[in-house]
């Protein structure tokens, strides 16, 4: 393995040992984080599949209702009725954090123009089919908001998992072995130096005795 580019001294070896300990601690922490993230992700994915099924079903009904309305009233009239929306929706964004991954939280805010009647369009040319279709659109939009939040969270957490995994692997397979090898190498080098100086001293002593 690779030996780090450091001075081969005892003090360097002590410093490296400290770094090694930190790296091992960090490795353990990151591994725990990874486990927890995966746990959270799986929980969310389960939720996501439930939501998906619900929204798919609801949307299907919604489209059907809308088609029906279109068939009964005629496309031109529908467009006319809906072309100027009286209602507007916006979202507020909050923020939660799961294992320090920041995840946006969406909240609906509806705003309706202040008019005397609460209808969203004129009743003259429209029938109850359109009312029903619009109602189901409103219903499904709430579920869709939940779905949006859930999917975004999954995306962000999945991304974080990938990043964390890479980091864990890097520490486990590169950083820690490098430290261990370097510490070992310094140890060997130092004892070699010691042996060299001992034998030199012995040699000098021999020469002096002669």
């Amino acid at each position, binding site marked *: 393995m690779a030996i780090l580019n450091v001075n081969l001294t005892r003090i360097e070896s002590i410093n490296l040992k400290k770094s090694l300990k930190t790296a091992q601690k960090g490795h353990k922490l990151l591994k725990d984080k990874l486990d927890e993230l*995966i746990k959270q*992700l*799986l929980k969310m*994915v*389960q939720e*996501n*599949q*439930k939501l*998906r099924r619900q*929204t*798919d079903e609801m*949307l*299907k009904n*919604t*489209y059907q209702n*809308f*088609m029906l309305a279109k068939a009964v009233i005629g496309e031109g009239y*529908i*467009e006319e009725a*809906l072309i100027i*929306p009286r*209602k*507007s*929706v*916006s*979202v*507020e*964004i909050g923020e939660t954090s799961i294992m320090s991954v*920041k995840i*946006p939280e*969406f909240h609906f*805010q*509806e*705003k309706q123009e202040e008019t005397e009647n609460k209808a*969203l*369009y004129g009743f003259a040319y429209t029938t109850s089919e359109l009312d029903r*279709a*619009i109602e189901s*659109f*409103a219903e499904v*939009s709430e579920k*869709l*908001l939940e*779905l*949006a*939040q859930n*999917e*975004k969270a*999954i*995306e*962000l*957490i*999945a*991304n974080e*998992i*990938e990043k964390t*995994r890479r980091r864990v692997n890097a520490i486990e397979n590169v950083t820690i072995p490098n430290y261990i090898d370097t510490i070992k190498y310094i140890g060997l080098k130092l004892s070699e130096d010691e042996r060299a100086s001992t034998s030199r001293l012995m040699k000098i002593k021999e020469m002096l005795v002669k």
Partner: protein
Amino acid sequence: MYKIAVVGDKESIFGFSAIGMDIFPAYEEEDVKQIIPKLIEENYAIIYITESVSRKAEKYLAKLQTNQIPAIVTIPSNAGSLHYGENRIKDMVQKAVGIEINFKEA
């Protein structure tokens, strides 16, 4: 204050305008590439996009995945669900966790 947009074929998305979302008709990848950056600039936090269109612009949309907002969510069009949104999540989980996960029907 953030807004909600719906992108897709006009037939499917038209109804959403009734409940106050803004609709943007799009059919091909090029349309998506033009519309999405504009939407991001104009403070849209959630973008619903119909399956057929989002599949065409898959690569482009994947790039936006890691941003906090907007959340881009695939919804089925009026032609019925192709389960594209579900599979996308499945792929993502597989990539992150390393194994495919099948949950039993709850």
